[in-house]
């Protein structure tokens, strides 16, 4: 048995009262590929951010090479021999590959100048140890494919003498060929007795390269098995868990004809061949992992990104969303996923934020905004959504996250759309505000709105949805209705199993 190189003991971490990690134990041996799996928000990224020095734990100990350590910064982690290769490689695109490898710890001549030839020599050695012919050393990093950029980062990690390398969804952006090459390199790293933490949502990959797997759910480790002792079904069961949620009943009447019908919608690199229908009086949920293309589909419906091919039918007629403004005028509203960057005007007032999209409607024939009506509308929504704000004039950044989200929601209710797309409507808000937002959504559907909700939280989907579409890597992998909406089905489809009625792989 190889010795343990890294061990986390009883790690806990909270963010503003929300427990992200609870008493997590995790150990990594030399020359071991240890897979880490779990739903979005299960705590994987928090754990690796703690291991790689980007976050400090609230509680617990980290033992590295037999000693108790405190990893206070990513730089310290690197010099200790712990490197992370993230999904989007952090690079300096205009600098050469050699510079990218040695930036901040250049090899110098006795006079203190950069010793270019020595650096290049060293870089060649590094790539040779990975079995890669380094013909690209002098090229600017930005000209390399993402796959090669990843290799450069691995080389950089080895240059730091890495004992532990963390891969965060490394294959998500790679072609099949590149992924295969990466697996070969991981094998070589294993031979060099480097410990590897491997995060991936592609379960088949894990069976291909990992020795052990740790499964996380809701901030806790729910399983730690050698790969030989577990199968795919068990992993999915553990990831999904048993969610006991009370469904919200709403009295919405589902329309006969779809108000929105999407056919074979495709945007290269984002989503492919997406077809679905949405009805008035129905809550349609898009489930799946972050980055599976759900948000991109929604943004295509709202005119933020324009699809390459496919058709959208809205109220029975062919429809093209030229711009958000146009989509809005046609009765489609989109509450963005990231309220900070896309939803709010933080230094402006609550009432300003609520009415910004309907100023033209509340202006008189001279185009002058009616201040009284504006106030009334703002007051109405503050009451209806129970927005806790000191006044109409309070700046939005002073409000809590939940109340900020309600302000964004109020803006869209004012527009009174026929189709309301809510992208992660309750992310980062507290339980009470979450319940209020859910109640509000039910009320809207009752009024006959068609609600499409994108959510990465299984309980939320289970609670609200009448119908669920699951996406995986840009494609629809599952459609569920009624009894079939359960966490196991959703996780299976979200991890890439095709579960479409009438079609098989």
């Amino acid at each position, binding site marked *: 048995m190889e010795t343990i190189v890294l061990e986390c003991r009883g790690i806990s971490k909270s963010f503003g009262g929300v427990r992200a990690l609870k008493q997590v134990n995790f150990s990594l041996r030399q020359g071991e590929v240890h897979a880490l799996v779990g739903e979005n928000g299960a705590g994987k990224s928090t754990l690796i951010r703690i291991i790689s020095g980007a976050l400090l734990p609230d509680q617990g100990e980290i033992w590295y090479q037999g000693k108790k350590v405190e990893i206070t910064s990513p730089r310290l982690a690197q010099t200790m021999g712990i490197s992370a290769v993230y999904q989007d490689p952090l690079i300096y695109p205009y600098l050469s590959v050699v510079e990218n490898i040695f930036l901040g710890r250049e090899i110098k001549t006795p006079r203190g100048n950069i010793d270019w030839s020595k650096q290049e020599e060293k870089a060649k050695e590094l790539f040779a140890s990975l079995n890669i012919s380094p013909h690209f050393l002098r090229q600017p990093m930005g000209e390399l494919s993402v796959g090669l950029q990843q290799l450069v980062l691995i080389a950089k990690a080895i240059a730091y003498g890495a004992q532990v390398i963390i891969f965060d969804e490394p294959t998500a952006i790679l072609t099949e060929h590149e992924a295969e090459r990466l697996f070969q390199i991981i094998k070589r790293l294993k031979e060099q007795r480097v410990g590897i933490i491997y995060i991936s949502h592609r379960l088949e990959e894990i069976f291909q390269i990992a020795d052990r797997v740790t499964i996380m759910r809701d901030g806790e480790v729910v399983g730690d098995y050698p790969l030989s002792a577990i199968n795919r079904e068990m992993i999915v069961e553990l990831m999904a868990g048993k969610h006991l949620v009370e469904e919200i009943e709403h009295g919405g009447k589902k329309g006969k004809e779809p108000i929105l019908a999407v056919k074979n919608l495709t945007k290269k690199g984002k989503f492919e061949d997406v077809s679905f229908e949405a009805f008035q009086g129905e809550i349609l949920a898009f489930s799946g992992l972050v980055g599976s293309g759900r948000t991109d589909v929604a943004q295509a419906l709202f005119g933020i990104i324009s699809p390459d091919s496919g058709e959208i039918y809205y109220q029975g007629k062919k429809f093209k969303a030229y711009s*958000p403004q146009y989509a809005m*005028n046609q009765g489609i509203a989109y509450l963005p996923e990231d309220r900070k*960057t896309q939803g709010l*005007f933080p230094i*402006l007032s609550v009432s300003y934020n609520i009415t910004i999209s309907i100023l033209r409607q509340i202006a008189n024939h001279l185009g002058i905004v009616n201040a009284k009506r504006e106030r009334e509308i703002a007051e109405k929504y503050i009451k209806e959504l129970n927005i806790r704000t000191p006044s109409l004039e309070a700046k939005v950044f002073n409000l809590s996250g939940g109340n900020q989200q309600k302000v964004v929601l109020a803006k869209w209710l004012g527009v009174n759309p026929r189709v309301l797309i809510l992208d992660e409507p309750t992310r980062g808000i507290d339980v009470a505000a979450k319940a209020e937002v859910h109640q509000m959504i039910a009320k809207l559907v009752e009024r006959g709105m068609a609600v499409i909700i994108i959510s990465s939280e299984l309980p939320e989907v289970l609670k609200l949805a009448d119908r669920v579409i699951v996406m995986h890597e840009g494609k629809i992998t599952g459609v569920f209705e009624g009894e079939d909406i359960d966490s196991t089905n959703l996780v299976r489809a979200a991890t890439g199993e095709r579960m479409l009625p009438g079609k098989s792989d």
Partner: protein
Amino acid sequence: MTNFQRIVRRREFTVLILILVLGAIFSFTTERFLSISNISNLLLQLSGVAITAIGMTMVIITGGIDVSAGSTLGMACVVSGYFLLGGYSPFLALILAVLVGLGIGLVNGTIIAWGGIPPIIATLGMMNLIRALMFQILGGKWISGIPPSVRTIGLGKWLGIPIPMWIAAFLIAIFSYFLSYRPLGRHVYAVGNNPEAARVSGVNLKSTVVFVYALTGALAGFAGLINAARTGIVQTNTGMGFELDVIAAVVLGGTSALGGRGTIIGSLLGAFLVGIIKNGMVLLNVPALSEGLVIGVLIIISVLADIIRARRETR
């Protein structure tokens, strides 16, 4: 927070106090500061800055800047100067001056909004280009000898206050109302605070941006006519450095250099502050160099205050 506290905490209030304090100091230390001719001269000088600052306030609220305002004013002076000299109706000269400015502003706005060129670069290019054109047109000569009969708009007074100041006050009232009560005016703030959210909220980003630069150009053109009519002289360097006074007025008046907030009234007060500092220092026989020093320091302090506030808010 009471209403009183809210007023006291506003930048406009600080600037007003500064104006009063400086006014008092200059009144005691110089004999001429409070004289009717000096006050009227002061008002005349700052009216052009105040008028152009209306547009510049909006430009800066959107997160942009327009450094071509001085050249625009100069070019409008040249065009309107020739027409005034030719004895044409001042009204025609006015229309032409505004049109020249509007044209320059439209080009600025278009290359910024559609070409995606950073505002400082786009308007810097425009500033040099216009200045070179002025040189071409004037060929090193001056325009002078414009008859006083057609210069009422620059020289006249009503109720003892110069007509340009009345015009400035009128425009400030109109555009302040515009910023608060017209959808387009309100969109200016949205674009500056969070362009991405503005787009998603259905605001037409590009046309809002084009509008603010076009307006600034038109107003600089208007200020150009007033300048030509007031001085009766147009040179190649007319309006050089004017944009800096306008930007100083806007920034001192509390418009955030980071975009998203600001008022036209604040910019008017800023224009007064800049005007009083310049005027008072001339009266005190302080060398012109230190005038730049004082205004420069004030600008840095005010932007710093703005950034510290923003940092506190986004903590």
